[in-house]
């Protein structure tokens, strides 16, 4: 009679055998006293091992919440993505600002002439000047966010825009691909990495709605907004925050205004799709306050890039029933680069 090998009894007790192997062993055990004794000895050895090993345990502490790990990992992923895209993103913004600076230098030889532009209201301003770019020192002036915002929008005229694209052509050779001239948006549109729902939409900054006294919006600190809504408002890492505004409770709309080095304001808007799009649309309709030669072009338009250049642009990204939008006086490809980056950084944090 074949007795059960030792390792098979270990496997049997460890429940590592198939059902039929177990049946075979059990019927043998029923008939064989020697194997039963062996099984009991092995069971004792097994328990003893487990007991000995159990002394080798660290003091038991509470595990961090899984969400905390997930958040840490999302942050890390974003940093890696960020590093990978850092060049493209930095280059696109630097190129956009640098080009604006160069262009204004050509067209506005006297810097002092450009300086008052921030304080003047839009219609009287010299139209071709990307004003906030032309006077970077203005960014340091303790303007309130609202005033900065109020000074911003000007309808660019077709002719100076064309001049500017002519001026920027040589500079663009040095710049990263994402920031290069007119055809860029079209090329980006063909890029396989383009998120499916990405679209350039027209938009003006929601100045009126964002006035602190509007009663609907609340201006909070970043931490305050977090405490109030339970979410961290989407924003661009590394830029000083000028203002955080929140509307609504359960599914809030958050607007974070941040300042670029040049003093321009970039706003990140995040919230339920209907609310964000109506916010953008409402500001769109307010265009008639300042007569414009053309409504906002879409990125598919032939000369889209030239006419968006240096003007107030908005980029929206739909994520399920929410919309992430940014508005800033930057070229559409820079906005595209920024919103892509934001999308990557904030994905999975919903």
């Amino acid at each position, binding site marked *: 009679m074949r007795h059960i090998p*030792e*390792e*098979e009894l*270990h*496997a049997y007790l*460890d429940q*590592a055998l198939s059902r039929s192997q177990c049946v075979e062993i059990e019927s043998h055990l029923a008939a064989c006293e020697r194997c039963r004794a062996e099984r009991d000895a*092995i069971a*004792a*050895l*097994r328990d*003893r*091992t*487990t007991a*000995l*090993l159990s*002394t*080798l*345990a*660290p*003091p*038991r*502490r509470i*595990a*961090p919440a*899984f969400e905390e*790990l*997930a958040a*840490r*990992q999302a942050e*890390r*992923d974003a940093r890696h993505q960020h590093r990978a895209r850092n060049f493209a993103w930095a280059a696109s913004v630097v190129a956009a600002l640098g080009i604006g600076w160069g262009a204004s230098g050509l067209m506005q030889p006297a810097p002092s002439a450009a300086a008052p532009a921030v304080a003047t209201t839009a219609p009287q301003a010299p139209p071709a000047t990307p004003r906030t770019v032309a006077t970077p020192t203005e960014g340091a002036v303790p303007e309130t966010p609202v005033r900065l915002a109020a000074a911003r929008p000007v309808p660019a005229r077709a002719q100076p825009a064309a001049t500017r694209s002519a001026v920027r052509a040589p500079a663009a050779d040095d710049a990263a691909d994402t920031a290069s001239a007119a055809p860029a948006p079209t090329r980006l549109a063909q890029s396989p990495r383009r998120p499916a729902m990405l679209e350039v939409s027209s938009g003006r900054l929601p100045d009126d709605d964002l006035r602190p006294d509007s009663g609907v919006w609340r201006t909070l600190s970043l931490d305050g907004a977090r405490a109030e809504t339970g979410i961290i408002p989407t924003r661009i890492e590394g830029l000083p925050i000028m203002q955080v505004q929140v509307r609504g409770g359960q599914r809030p709309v958050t607007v974070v205004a941040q300042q670029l080095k040049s003093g321009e304001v970039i706003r990140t808007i995040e919230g339920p799709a209907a609310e964000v799009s109506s916010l953008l649309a409402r500001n769109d309709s307010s265009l008639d306050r300042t007569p414009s030669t053309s409504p906002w072009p879409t990125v598919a338009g032939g000369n889209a890039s030239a006419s968006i250049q240096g003007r107030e642009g908005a980029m929206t990204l739909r994520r399920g029933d929410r919309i992430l939008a940014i508005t800033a006086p930057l070229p559409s490809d820079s906005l595209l680069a920024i919103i892509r980056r934001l999308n990557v950084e904030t994905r999975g944090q919903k």
Partner: protein
Amino acid sequence: MTDELEQLYQTTYTAVVRFLYRKVWDADRAEDLAQEVFMRALHHRPEKPRAWVFAVAANLARDEARAAIRRKRHLTLLKTEPLVQPARTESPDDAVEHDEELTTVHEALAVLTPRDREVLLLWDAGLSYPEIAEQTGLAVGAVGTTLARARKRLVDAYERQHPEASQRHAAHS
């Protein structure tokens, strides 16, 4: 898609910490490494997350041990620290006894061959025979043989070093 990993985290985190602790012998470090393992899992989304988690934990512990050896080479005046932190809730006498026992088990574990030790620790961490086989490169059929040997050697080594404890154990049982 997070659900499976989250569930694994809830059920396995403590086992991963323990598994790592038995390799790096530092509770804080074991926790740091365990969290690192799960963060990597979140990034990689492995197909067989449980086996993957322990494989990565084993790799991290190995890297850690190598780094520790390098550090020791530089620290010539390394004073010998007690192997384990004193247990917190026990009376001093109990604590001393607990420490002794711990040290003895640790030394007994060190007697095993690296492969036997690995199989034993993986089994104790809750891995199945096929999972252990995959991670160690053994045939599934060899896992039982290895475990049989490892268990016997661990208990033998412990009782050789700590005869009173084994007598006490015999008296208890």
